[in-house]
């Protein structure tokens, strides 16, 4: 539980976050926008896309689990040089193949990550290899991103699927997997004549949705992958009759599939073929996905029951939070008659999977899973931070433009930087909210960040200055 965090672990986490933000602000010009800055947006010119665009899921993932160190690296370069790099990388594109560029990029970032990230990797290794994993420490580390090859183990532990005690781990996982196979045999592998009408309808709905799950990533178009997904979703639905299958839960299973398959399939997800795996391995991956999905959804059961009260409650909280942080945007949206439910419903229902490029999803989920039981409440902060990425744009749009914009947010070129920014801001707002009861401090913080005055972001300064700002 997050609440039981000691002050020191919170402080170390905020330090990590601050380092992330500092790296972001110093090292580069931010393609997105810092909240409430008055700086004009960089033009949406496709030729200015960062060279990382187009990198495959696994490649980009391989080198960017720790943004902080990458940023440090780039701090050394001056900005103009960086821009030159960008341009030359883009100029290269039409001439050389995309693959060449991406492999160079990957080499560089992997090397960078390995060279400078070793301290973090060592911490992870230490935590994971102990005879009893101390989950609090693992959470703290995982919050800022998990090295890709450690993700499967880390996620299983964070979700409470694998036990912290390493002696018991293998045995418990084996038993759980068998339990899943039994469920599949009992519920899924039966003729339709043994199903109720509702169950037939549910299975039909699932089979309609499986082929259109992450359809933009070809890996998910493989029939065997879709069948696995179908078994996971149907089994989960049968065993959770209060909600049953709800569209969007299919999306939530995909990060687990990708992460647990990454233990067995190497390289680029675009080239993964599930038929390279033995049926045993596929079954185990499937079982792990099932249990992890179950664990995740246990924490938000009323998100998917009738009328989805859990989501409605969080949407309301989001509206309230946004109003406290950024009153002008909030007022504008209100004046335009825009309701938060009209766009944020999907955010909560699919946990933002639909809103960001798929290759960033696993990084986002590191933070989700590190939050554990506190996740639903923390989602509100993440989503507020996400929404206010476009604070300025939103204020220029009328009702219809707002709805359209929010349904198709311009995140297709996002890299880890923008995501880290969203998470860091969410973290700081949440921290302020729980530490300083007066919420006026929000605006103060927001303004400070926008002025790039990061010196105030030490916790003591923050408290001192924010109290004075209350009276100005």
């Amino acid at each position: 539980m997050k609440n039981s965090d000691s002050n020191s672990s919170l402080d170390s986490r905020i330090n990590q976050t601050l380092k992330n933000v500092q790296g972001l602000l110093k090292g580069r010009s931010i393609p997105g926008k810092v909240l409430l800055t008055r700086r004009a947006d960089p033009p949406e010119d496709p030729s200015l896309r960062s060279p990382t665009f187009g990198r495959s899921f696994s490649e980009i993932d391989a080198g960017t689990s720790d943004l902080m160190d990458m940023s440090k690296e780039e701090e050394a370069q001056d900005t103009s040089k960086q821009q030159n790099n960008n341009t030359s990388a883009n100029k290269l594109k039409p001439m050389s193949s995309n693959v060449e560029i991406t492999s160079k990029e990957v080499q560089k970032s992997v090397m960078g990550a390995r060279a400078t990230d070793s301290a973090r990797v060592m911490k992870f290794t230490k935590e994971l290899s102990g005879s009893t994993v101390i989950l609090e420490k693992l959470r703290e580390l995982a919050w800022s991103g998990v090295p890709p090859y450690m993700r499967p183990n880390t996620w299983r532990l964070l979700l409470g699927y694998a036990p912290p005690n390493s002696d018991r781990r293998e045995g418990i996982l084996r038993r759980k997997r068998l339990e899943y196979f039994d469920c599949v045999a009992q519920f899924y592998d039966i003729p339709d004549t043994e199903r109720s009408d509702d169950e037939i309808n549910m299975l039909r709905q699932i089979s309609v949705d499986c082929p259109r799950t992450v359809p933009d990533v070809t890996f998910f178009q493989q029939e065997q992958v879709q069948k696995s997904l179908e078994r996971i979703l149907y089994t989960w639905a049968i065993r959770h009759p209060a909600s049953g299958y709800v569209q969007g839960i299919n999306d939530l299973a995909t990060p687990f599939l990708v992460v647990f398959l990454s233990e067995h399939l190497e390289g680029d997800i675009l080239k993964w073929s599930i038929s390279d795996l033995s049926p045993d391995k596929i079954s185990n991956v499937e079982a792990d996905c099932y249990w992890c999905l179950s664990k995740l959804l246990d924490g938000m059961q009323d998100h998917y029951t009738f009328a989805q009260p859990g989501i409605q409650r969080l949407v309301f909280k989001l509206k309230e939070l946004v109003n406290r942080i950024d009153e002008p945007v909030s007022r504008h949206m209100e004046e335009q008659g825009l309701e938060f439910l009209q766009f944020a419903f999907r955010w909560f229902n699919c946990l933002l999977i639909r809103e960001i490029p798929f290759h960033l999803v696993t990084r986002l989920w590191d933070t989700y899973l590190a939050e554990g039981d506190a996740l639903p409440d923390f989602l509100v902060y993440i989503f507020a931070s996400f929404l206010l990425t476009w604070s300025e744009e939103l204020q220029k749009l009328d009702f219809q433009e707002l709805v359209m914009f929010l349904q198709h947010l311009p995140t297709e070129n996002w890299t880890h930087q923008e995501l880290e920014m969203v998470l860091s801001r969410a973290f700081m707002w949440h921290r302020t909210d729980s530490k300083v009861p007066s919420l006026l401090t929000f605006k103060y913080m927001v303004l400070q960040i926008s002025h790039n005055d990061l010196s105030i972001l030490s916790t003591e300064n923050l408290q001192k200055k924010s109290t004075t700002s209350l009276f100005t």
Partner: protein
Amino acid sequence: MGHRVDHEYDYLFKIVLIGDSGVGKSNILSMFTRNEFCLESKSTIGVEFATRTLQVDGKTVKAQIWDTAGQERYRAITSAYYRGAVGALLVYDITKRQTFDNVQRWLRELRDHADSNIVIMMAGNKSDLKHLRAVQEEDGHALAEKEGLSFLETSALEGTNIEKAFQTILTEIYHIISKKALAAQEAAATSTVPGQGTTINVADASGNTSKGCCST
């Protein structure tokens, strides 16, 4: 809804797209508003939204279309969007009998949550998949006639009848609205005739006059 009435259009009509999951509602919408068909479309979560402005009987009409999720679980969320809708496109899939059988349930949804005068067009979508047809066109016609709906078979993939389906709904709405406006004008005209017992108008007028006196 809080949309402003600007001067780019004469009328703004809110339309809802309903029907079972996977019948092609979102593609009908993207075809109509953006001329795009996406084979790899994702399921709609909650509601989505798009608009298109077009000419109806020489008037500029903006269609504000709300595309709803087909799954039953979302009814509680989506039915809120029926409020204020003047038209509905109820879609089924001609290759899936079940989606046609469910049309009655969707009509009930509309009766329960939408305005009683809502204009409904039924569309049998995916007409390009002739070899997979499970619902005959005559069945569609028969049901439409029985329920008093307009009816067309459509193909979002080929763009067949998509334009026509919306054009028909919007024209019908426009005719109803202009008839109502005409009736209201006539009513207003007759009410000024003395002896009709227009006491309310008189009272209003006198009230205004007295205020006017005080302020000047």
